[in-house]
């Protein structure tokens, strides 16, 4: 059997290695960025559509946290990381925008792209809440569990279509693209960009390329920070899960009650003589009921926000610290690498 030999960059060792395409496919790392909140700019529209910015912000962090746990649980992937923004060195980058999340329905505009620019998934996932769905772990219980399993299955199905060579290419390009952001003069020549927008590489750096080793050391350093943030996301998730579950439960009950009331009123109508006291009272009580529902919803949101606030602030601090630290360190690293490159030449 003819063995096609291809090269890939082993991220864990930071070295160029040869691997036969006939070998088992390596696992790919997944980077998930915090979901886009998709908030209407007009606050009136937010009100009409019953979108609450503080709740949505929490969801933008909670939902990807749950997806991360699900993907980890599947055992089909390498490291799964959750970051506030896109990861420049991602092998597979997942991004999603929250289209609808009212406790009863969850709808995500979902996109997964690998480092070569190949789009794995670009579609909307929508599911209606189902009670008591669990993956035998309390933390993996969620009314929208099937939405996540849909995503996980689709990702796995796409991965299954890739050859080992293609997977290795993804990993190599991911490393080179990351390296090119730090030392463009050194690493951009390795990369190719087709008219289709797909990245590839024309050649690979030597196994002991000092710049590659430096870049890898920086990447490892970055992982230390990312892991801290990752832990913060996880703590946030664990802390707000019971509160968010309760919020969604109450929200579902409230929506069901509202739908029931509207249907009942539509079916029964107003039996009282038009303009009579009872008829006026009925009209007013119906309206009063709907406004009380709105106010109940406000209290629900207020209770949710009050309860998650301390956890939210801790995560916010951590993210701020990470972005500040990384921005500062990227700048320093870029300067150092540039100086080294100039010295070498």
């Amino acid at each position: 059997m003819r063995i096609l030999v291809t090269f890939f960059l082993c991220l864990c060792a930071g070295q160029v290695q040869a691997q036969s395409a006939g070998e088992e496919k390596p696992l790919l790392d997944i980077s998930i960025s915090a979901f886009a909140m998709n908030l209407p700019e007009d606050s009136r529209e937010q009100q009409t559509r019953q979108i609450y910015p503080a709740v949505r912000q929490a969801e933008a962090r909670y939902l990807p946290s749950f997806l991360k746990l699900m993907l980890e649980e599947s055992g089909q992937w390498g490291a799964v990381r959750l970051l506030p923004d896109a990861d420049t060195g991602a092998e597979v980058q997942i991004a999603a925008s929250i289209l609808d999340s009212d406790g009863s329905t969850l709808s995500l505009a979902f996109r997964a792209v690998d480092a070569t620019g190949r789009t794995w998934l670009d579609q909307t996932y929508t599911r209606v809440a189902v009670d008591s769905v669990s993956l035998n772990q309390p933390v993996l219980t969620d009314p929208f569990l099937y939405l996540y399993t849909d995503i996980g299955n689709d990702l796995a199905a796409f991965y299954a279509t890739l050859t080992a060579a293609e997977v290795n290419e993804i990993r190599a390009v991911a490393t080179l693209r990351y390296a090119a952001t730090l030392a463009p003069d050194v690493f951009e020549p390795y990369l190719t960009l087709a008219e289709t927008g797909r990245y590839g590489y024309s050649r690979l750096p030597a196994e002991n390329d000092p710049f590659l080793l430096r870049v890898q050391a920086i990447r490892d350093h970055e992982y230390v920070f990312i892991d801290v943030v990752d832990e913060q996301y996880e703590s946030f998730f664990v802390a707000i899960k019971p509160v968010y579950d309760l919020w969604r439960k109450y929200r579902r009950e409230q929506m069901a009650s509202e739908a029931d009331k509207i249907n009942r009123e539509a079916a029964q109508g107003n039996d009282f003589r038009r303009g009579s006291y009872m008829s006026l009272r009925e009209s007013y009580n119906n309206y009063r009921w709907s406004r009380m529902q709105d106010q109940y919803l406000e209290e629900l949101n207020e209770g949710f926000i009050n309860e998650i606030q301390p956890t939210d602030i801790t995560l916010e601090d951590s993210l701020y610290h990470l972005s500040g630290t990384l921005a500062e360190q990227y700048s320093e690293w870029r300067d150092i690498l540039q100086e080294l490159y100039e010295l070498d030449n």
Partner: protein
Amino acid sequence: MLGNSNPAYPYIKPELPVPDLITVNIQPALTACLAALLLLAGCQTAEPSRINEEVEFNVVDMSGNWEKDYQLSDDFQTEFNLYMSDIQRTYRQQADGLNRGTTFGGGPSVGGSMETIVGLARFTEEITRMPLLQIEQDRARIRIDREDDFALFCEFFSRQTAVTQTPFGTEQCGWNGEQLLFQLDLQDGLSIFYQVTLAPNGRQLNITTTVTSAMVSTPLTISNYYRRYDIPESDVDCILTLTRNNVCRRAPQGTN
């Protein structure tokens, strides 16, 4: 002390005609005019919006706790008598016009059935009780909590009026000068219009409520006055949570 003196700010009461009947109780008054009114039962269309987007406004801080001033506020029985007089007078004018072969400009016919007039009065009396108000306000919104009723809430980010729609009605709010207005258009041709005005000295609040029914030609207006009252500051801070309801803690000394 406010006593029986007139409010210290220019509040214009809705114009009511000089009553023909000085003192009447609801039932006799209704009986007297019932036969005529039944023949002229009105059927108004939905109340047009009274809240104008184009009017200049000046947001006034109405926040605080308010209790009803019963001495200044309308006495419902008196107002009802005046209301009935108004209906009777208009009816007579209309009847005279009809006898002379003239009509009243195509407006809705006067009155309504006894059931609808009494219904409107009873309903108005109920919704205008509002003994206590708690008003929270910031630069963009105001919330008027009323005891045993839903809160009137208005977000006024810009000059636009705010509209809240529910399956059971529409609520529009906005400022007109220094007056805060709410208009509720509900099912069955019921419309409720609130005008909220703060006295220049900030100590008095007026809420004038006008209730219109599609089945009664003349709206009923009730004016209530409120005076501020202070709630002693608590040394306990409470916040609402989902899993633990209200969570309270003693406020650090010196913060209150």
